[in-house]
């Protein structure tokens, strides 16, 4: 029973740390399936977290904070879009730039506006997201197994958590069951086909990148308004890159993205849990190894040793009409 309780706790924290990964990886999915590589997920998430923390701190409204996160992150996405789509610049270089701008600006502006060493003001009641208790969770909490899973594991998360998981099937549905999704997938594979079908490649890709910005913003708001209370400098802490790894690991597919993020989140949760505790048969596994595992797994995947990660065919290449 003790093992089971531990498992529930680990799974709970898995869900908690997976949410920003899922949101950011889905964000990257919209952009990259449309042919625009984005290594700027980290920066957009960080900027979103800052905007959310700042606005919620001032207005004491979580919703306004969320809105600010989305607006700021989308603005950075537009910079990326302008550089990559309109100016046909290098997508990697642009992404790197955005990461730095966000990393620096959140600290400078945070310090200037709030003078709390890069923190945003404390959040009062209502300024942070609160947890949602699922219906009947309290009633069946005592029921063995089902109660533990339903009340202990599934209930009591933030609304954004449920939103993140709901976005997984939603994204699948958008990609495969809507006009926008069909065109988005097409433009990432063969922009020529989209262009000759009478659709604007530029506008389509802009929309995809804006979607990416919105989701990164939500991921950021989760960091500063749900996972913790307020913004701390550098709080995205590489989550954007893990999300990127998860996206590749998931071969750019929404449902796989969720599982990849849960796997990476689980590794993270285990790493914290196991600190110093030996595993049966293996002995003590260094925490750092667990932390590096997502990246190691992604490299192995990229090397083609477990399946093959084929990126969208037109990814990374600016679209120029053939002469």
């Amino acid at each position, binding site marked *: 029973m003790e093992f089971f309780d531990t498992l529930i706790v680990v799974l709970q924290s898995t869900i908690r740390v997976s949410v920003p990964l899922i949101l950011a990886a889905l964000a990257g999915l919209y952009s990259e399936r449309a042919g625009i590589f984005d*290594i700027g997920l980290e920066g957009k998430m960080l900027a979103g977290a800052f905007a959310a923390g700042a606005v919620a701190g001032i207005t004491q409204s979580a919703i306004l904070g969320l809105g600010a996160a989305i607006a700021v992150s989308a603005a950075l996405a537009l*910079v990326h879009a302008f*550089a*990559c789509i309109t*100016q*046909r*610049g*290098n*997508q*990697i*270089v*642009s992404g*790197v*730039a*955005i*990461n*730095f*701008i*966000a*990393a*620096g*600006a959140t*600290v*400078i*502006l945070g*310090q*200037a*506006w709030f003078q709390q060493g890069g923190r945003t003001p404390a959040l009062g009641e209502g300024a942070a997201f609160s947890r949602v208790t699922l219906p009947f969770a309290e009633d069946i909490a005592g029921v063995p197994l089902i109660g533990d899973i339903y009340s202990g594991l599934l209930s009591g998360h933030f609304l954004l958590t449920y939103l993140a998981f709901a976005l997984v099937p939603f994204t699948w549905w958008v990609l495969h069951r809507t006009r926008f999704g069909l065109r988005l997938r097409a433009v990432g594979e063969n922009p020529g086909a989209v262009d000759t079908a009478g659709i604007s490649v530029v506008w389509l890709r802009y929309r995809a990148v804006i979607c990416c910005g919105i989701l990164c913003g939500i991921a950021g708001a989760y960091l500063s308004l749900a996972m913790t209370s307020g913004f701390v400098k550098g709080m995205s802490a*590489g989550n954007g*890159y893990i999300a*990127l*790894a998860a996206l*590749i690991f998931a071969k750019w597919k929404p449902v796989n993205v969720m599982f990849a993020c849960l796997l990476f989140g689980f590794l993270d949760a285990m790493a914290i849990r196991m600190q110093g505790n030996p595993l049966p048969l293996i002995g003590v596994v*260094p*925490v*750092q*190894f667990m*932390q*590096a595992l997502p*990246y*190691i797994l*992604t*490299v192995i995947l*990229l*090397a*083609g040793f477990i399946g093959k990660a084929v*990126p969208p065919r037109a990814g990374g290449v600016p679209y120029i009409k053939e002469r």
Partner: protein
Amino acid sequence: MSAGYGKLPAWVDFGLIPLINLIVAFLVAGLVVLAVGENPLRAAGLMVNGAFGYGEGVGFTLYYATNFIFTGLAVAVAFHCGLFNIGGEGQAYVAGLGVALPCLWFDDLLPWYLLFPIAVLGTAFVGAAWALIPGWLQAKRGSHVVITTIMFNFIASSLMVYLLVDVLKPAGSMAPETRGFTEGGQLPKLDWLLAAVGFDIGSAPFNFSFLLALLMAFIVWVVIWRTRLGYEIRTMGHSPTAARYAGIRESRIIIITMLMSGALAGMMALNPIMGDQHRMQLDFVGGAGFVGIAVALMGRSHPVGIIPAAILFGMLYQGGAEISFEMPEISRDMIVIIQGLVILFAGALENMFRPAITTFFATLSGARASASASASE
């Protein structure tokens, strides 16, 4: 081909356009300074003064610049082959082992001038080894080097934390760092160099590895522009089809280039470890690997451009620290913004002003040029 390329005078291409991009980046940075309620001009004055106004400042500026010359060269060498090595940070971090271990082993036995060559080879070897896997995966399996080097940065970070916390930390110590090196593991300062021009570097850690950085800049220039290998690298970078036509083996060149890039990034570890702290600390690279991207883009991947670009960023680092005394709103993170803006405007948006400039020069030489062009058709 887009119209207008290669039609501008060289000084516009290599001088004016990069300069305009740089100015725009700094103008935007100035707006950020304004946004936090400070005067950008005063900030710029403070920065220049803090970086060059007195001996110690100059010493610090050049100390930082040393890091950026190494990492800038690393990124530039890869650029010449058409590769984007984002992994300089991780390569330098792991390469810390290449200097720290020899120092820990031999600092009591050898004088610095014997230990230094070992450390140089050590850092170059470890840095190259850390770049080898991404390079090999790119050459043989087509895995994109950008993604793999990002992954390797994180793997490097975890590895080094593990080593510093669990392996290299002396028993009984709390700080995640190696023991301090004795005299053999300490590079001499270059105080005499600045004293020659009348500066007293005070406590600034400006040290011997700066000379190594200059030597490497020269060697990179020689390798890229004066050797057969460099010729093959540049051919690959400009035109893979021409390289195939010329019988240049693609995967070999990719791997060699990544090895060189990793070795250069690795040598950066010498400066803080053997030149300044005389121990290996957690996170000693401190983002220098990423600054290398901005430096390489700004210096147009040429050593002659990279050295001033590195000094500029050294100035930003040192001057930025000075500003924060006078203007508490502006911390060193301002540099990170500037770095991002430089990468954005000198890199991703490098051609934004080109059409306007091309038009300007076309109208300037208007009738004459069009007359001669139509005559030659």
